[in-house]
């Protein structure tokens, strides 16, 4: 056990910090184009697709280097690159399961943000029970024709391409008849309708596919292998962001402490109130415990091991923590916490929110409700932990027999 960073890691961290000092955008990013510019600068710096093969534009970097870069970006409150799903989910899926031709065709364009991606998994009737999805892909000889509806598609409204799960064989058991595809979103058969979230913004959409076309060369893996592929994609992103996530929480915590110094109740700064101090102490303890957990995850990744079902513990832990953190921040800030406008300026209530932008506590609080739903809800994670780590019996389920339909 040695929790010190190696001299190489320390030196690498320094070089990233120096680069950021030089290159960090001076002004807040407002348009997608500005974000692409920033994205490309990051890529040219060697800080995107770090773990991908060099042959396809990646950096063959170690997990620790990836974690350090993400961590330094968070420390500097750097804006996020665009193409989060391309970088986090789609690229890694192509790296692991794609053909050489697919890697050559797609990976560099993801890294350069020339093509933006979305993930077309969830459907109105297939959320947690993703394998119940009904979108059909029919084999037409040299291509597939896709019909169906997806929903909660993040970045759907800006995406050029989508990573799609569709049913290719309705006759077999539901997990077995699903195939994974890459689908061009810029075609007449695809209609995207943005959905407004509780945050008031529209990061996700509904996607309707009517006789949309997928090339045969855009099938990922074998026919019927889609479910297995989807299982592997969910875990890709977590390790690299392990530390960065905590660092973002820590910088938000720093803001909370500053406000607690300025905000007074009965003329006394909140920071002097023992009840508030208990809350602040509790958040910091939990936050640090999350950081220790991230270091354990990184230890595994550095040894080339995959956290496997252990990833469910990590995800459950930090997403539930984020909710508690934001709830406690709301308690500490009182009614000010809910403001999206009109707070006394001297309180300086603005923070970095989950999406890496300057925002409000209210916005961050609302976003904290999403983490325990997407990428496998907390309940699903607990099922996985119970069954796969603890070896508890599976529940009796009505769908464990028979075909998909």
């Amino acid at each position: 056990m040695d929790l010190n960073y190696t001299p190489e890691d320390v030196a690498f961290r320094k070089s990233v910090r120096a680069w950021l000092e030089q290159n960090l955008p001076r002004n807040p990013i407002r348009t997608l184009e500005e974000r692409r510019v920033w994205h490309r600068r990051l890529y040219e710096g060697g800080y995107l697709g770090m773990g991908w093969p060099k042959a396809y534009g990646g950096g063959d970097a170690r997990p620790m280097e990836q974690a350090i870069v993400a961590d330094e970006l968070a420390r500097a409150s750097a804006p996020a690159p665009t193409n989060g799903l391309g970088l986090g989910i789609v690229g890694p899926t192509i790296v692991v399961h794609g053909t050489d031709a697919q890697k050559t065709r797609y990976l560099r364009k993801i890294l350069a943000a020339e093509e933006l991606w979305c993930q077309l998994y969830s459907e109105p009737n297939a959320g947690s029970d993703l394998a119940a999805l009904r979108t059909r892909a029919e084999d037409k000889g040299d291509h597939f024709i896709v019909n169906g509806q997806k929903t909660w598609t993040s970045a759907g409204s800006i995406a050029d391409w989508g990573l799609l799960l569709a049913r290719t064989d309705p006759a077999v058991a539901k997990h077995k008849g699903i195939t994974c595809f890459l689908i061009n979103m810029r075609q007449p058969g695809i209609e995207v309708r943005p959905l407004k979230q509780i945050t008031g913004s529209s990061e996700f959409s509904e996607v309707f596919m009517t006789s949309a076309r997928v090339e045969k060369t855009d099938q990922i893996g074998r026919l019927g292998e889609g479910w297995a592929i989807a299982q592997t994609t969910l875990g890709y992103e977590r390790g690299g962001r392990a530390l960065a996530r905590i660092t973002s929480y820590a910088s938000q915590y720093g803001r909370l402490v500053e406000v607690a110094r300025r905000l007074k109740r009965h003329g006394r700064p909140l920071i002097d109130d023992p009840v508030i101090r208990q809350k602040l102490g509790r958040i910091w303890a939990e936050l640090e415990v999350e950081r220790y957990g991230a270091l354990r995850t990184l230890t595994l990744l550095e040894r080339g091991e995959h956290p496997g079902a252990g990833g469910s513990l990590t995800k459950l832990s930090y997403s539930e923590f984020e909710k508690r953190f934001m709830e406690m921040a709301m308690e500490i800030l009182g009614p000010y916490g809910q403001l999206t406008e009109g707070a006394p300026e001297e309180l300086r209530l603005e923070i970095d929110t989950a999406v890496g932008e300057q925002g409000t506590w209210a916005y961050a609080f609302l976003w904290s409700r999403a983490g325990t739903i997407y990428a496998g809800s907390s309940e699903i994670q607990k099922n996985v932990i119970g069954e796969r780590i603890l070896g508890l019996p599976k529940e009796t389920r009505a769908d464990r027999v028979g075909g998909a339909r």
Partner: protein
Amino acid sequence: MNFSFSEDQVLLRNSVRSFLDEHCRPAHPRAMMDDARGYDPALWNEMAKLGWLGLPVPEQHGGAGLGLVELCIAIEELGRAAYPGPYLATVVLGGLGLLLGGSAAQKDRWLPAIASGEKRASAALMEDALDWDPASTAATAVTAGDGWTISGVKRFVPWAHVADIVLVPARSPEGLSLFLVDPKQAGVALRRMVGIDLCSRWSEMRIESVRVGADAVVGQPGTAGPVLESLLRRAAVCASAEMLGAARRCLDMSVEYAKVREQFGQPIGSFQAIRHRCAEMLLEVENSHSAVYYAAWALEAGAEDAAVAASICKSYVSESARRVCGDSIQVHGGIGFTWEYDLHLYMKRAKALEPLFGDAEFHRELITRHVVGAR
């Protein structure tokens, strides 16, 4: 960066576990509940032979010279076995206390005796102020000849009734000082304080004008503050390791039970209410593991955040262990509430350690002080 046990550390854990599985089955703590001493000297000697009593004691003093991580590994296993005996009191409070503050002569005299199992020790850190902050010490040490006369009342002194020496903080003219007091000495009165964990022994310790010599002061008079703070941190982390062991045992028993106990024609573990509870218990146990071993490493390595890590550890594990042990009783239903069933041994151990060396609230205030500055 490597947050995992080395091969040697895994070996240590396995050997402690297999020894305790054989020699400290639940029948053992049960047998010790009515024992006047509360521990088995034969087992104590075995532990000495295995080198456990001198784990953190430097080799020159007859110990193994290992660090806090190894010590926590052993103590976690003791918690897992609900081991009844003055281990934490002797090795941590006494041994680490002397290591942190003792003079060369004191170390020469006491550390080999601790490592060999010949002597037992403790520390009297709590008074009526109910504050673990050493600055709250009210006991006094008045200069008398070349020594002192000590008076004061200490509460919750672990295993004082079998200790050969107790570290006693008191205010001397030089400031806060730490003294070695023989609890069997005239003027010292011990009264048993019986808690729900009959395998954890505490005493009230009344010290009335007890004369001690010049060699009784630990280190230099007036310098005890930092020593006691360091000791408190280590004791808090070691107690957390023991709570973690107790919690892990409760989790393991719950998971096993949930696999075999059937109701409504199926194992109760197939009900989500039970399965999800077990998953949450595992989450808290794993997070507690992180908190304990991070803090142990940080203290050993002298990391910048060592002090706050110790408080994070104690505040987090105190509450998690309580929840996990409590939940394990719920998972078991009626049988979990019986004296016959072993769960309560571990649940009570965790409970007994929860307030010691600072409860969650005490340490949360320290955390806030570290992070945002003093009030």
